[in-house]
């Protein structure tokens, strides 16, 4: 009896010390990070609201540490769809936005939520679907979308008011097609990665931004069936939210982020992201 009690106590002690070590190590690495922040003085934190593609592809993890080191601003990234990101801007909840839905961005500025929108980078959308499926490779979006609709092939839509979703709806609309009339049309309501996963499982077609497509680890049987079309361009813009939206907006930090990401060093950084791993850049810088 006594022996098991001692054993139990030792066990508890071991576990407790394990947690203590974990916590200590964590504190140490945290303070180490602060000290090792380079010569720039810490200035504060900005909230960056952005799309899932910049986070899921790993771009932000690649460039933000450099931004923090060079300018002293810490960045809290909230990765949501472009629609949600713009709403966070209107609510005064985000200091700066990195989004991709040009018409909505222009409306955002003209409605007075921001003074300026700056070009940052672009990539393009691709339509992916099951390899060896009914759709042959094409560089004509109209042809591919029309074929999907005409043959009632399964298609997974983001359905989350994101930039990619808005783009998809715009393409359907420009072709005069009502996508819902296709019985195989599914509205997922999920991020890009999750939607690609669904398309793979359902052997369906979907519209994806190239960055998420390239970095998505589990492509399975999916392949590109349509790309390189004018209609599929995907420009990203940065928008510092105006201080008039809410007095808590960090306009200084937001502007600093916009200035930095459109500066030459940051643009060069964007151009190199993913080249080593995927053999091509995931985003092409185009700040003016």
């Amino acid at each position: 009896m006594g022996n098991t009690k001692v054993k139990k106590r030792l066990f508890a002690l071991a576990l407790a010390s394990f947690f203590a070590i974990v916590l200590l190590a964590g504190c140490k690495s945290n303070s180490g990070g602060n000290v090792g922040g380079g010569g720039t003085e810490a200035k504060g934190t900005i909230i960056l609201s952005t799309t899932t593609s910049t986070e899921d592809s790993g771009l932000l993890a690649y460039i933000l540490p450099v931004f923090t080191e060079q300018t002293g601003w810490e960045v809290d990234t909230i990765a949501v769809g472009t629609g949600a990101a713009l709403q966070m801007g209107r609510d005064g909840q985000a200091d700066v936005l990195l989004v991709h839905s040009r018409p909505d961005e222009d409306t955002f500025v003209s409605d007075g939520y921001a003074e300026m929108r700056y070009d940052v980078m672009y990539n393009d959308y691709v339509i992916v679907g099951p390899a060896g499926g009914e759709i042959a490779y094409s560089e004509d979006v109209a042809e591919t979308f029309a074929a999907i609709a005409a043959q009632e092939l399964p298609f997974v839509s983001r359905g989350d008011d994101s930039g990619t979703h808005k783009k998809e709806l715009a393409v359907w609309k420009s072709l005069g097609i009502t996508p819902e009339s296709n019985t195989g049309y599914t509205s997922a309501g999920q991020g890009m990665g999750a939607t690609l996963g669904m398309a793979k499982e359902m052997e369906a077609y979907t519209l994806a931004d190239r960055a998420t497509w390239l970095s998505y680890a589990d492509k399975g049987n999916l392949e590109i069936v349509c790309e390189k079309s004018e209609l599929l361009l995907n420009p990203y813009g940065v928008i510092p939210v105006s201080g008039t939206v809410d007095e808590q907006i960090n306009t200084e930090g937001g502007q600093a982020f916009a200035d930095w990401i459109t500066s030459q060093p940051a643009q060069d950084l964007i151009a190199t992201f993913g080249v080593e791993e995927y053999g091509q850049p995931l985003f092409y810088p185009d700040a003016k």
Partner: protein
Amino acid sequence: MFDALDAGLLNIIITTMKVTLPSSAISAVLGTALGLLLEGSQFYGKRIIVRINRTLMGSPPVVVGLVCYLLFMRKGVFGFMDILFSVKAMVVAQVMIITPIISGMVYSSAERNAPNIRSFAHTMGASAGQTRLLLIKELKNEVYFAAISGFGRAISEVGAVMIVGGNIRGKTRTMTTAITLLRNQGNYSEAIYLGCVLMAIALCVQLVADNLKGKEAVGDDNY
């Protein structure tokens, strides 16, 4: 293989603990007090309060997360506190989810056992204060079980911490939101690996708690 995790894994574990330990501790105290108070008092409308408590026990975390988001956003009622997208807001959201669970469980076990304990205390000539103390002692196992259930709920919860915390790298990314992100990146092996770590931690915490409880129970035998 797990290069995406290595640097951040420890940070993610620590963030998870920073959220779940305070939230389950606060909820355990609040929930136990509320549950016992509710059982011990009689007032008009008590049945409605109990019914509301039961309903809140099953409240979806995303709804609680949404409510917290609206309360703590800059334009919200508590926007001036500036705690949205921080561990603090995550703790508040989890307390709102877990407290009703603990109070509901404590209330129903107290309702079942308290009359007997009270009449026993009455026969022994105990004062009101002594009776209350005896009640808590006798219900210790039930309170403990409720608290562990609360912790289990806290550590496994993803809906509220995602909305209120924002899944910020190195700051509010917990194990559950990290798993969600890994799934979005199609990194299933890393997601499962993290899931296993999560379950191992849940097991460890439970074993430690079991041990502490075991010690107290042994101490009680001396009475």
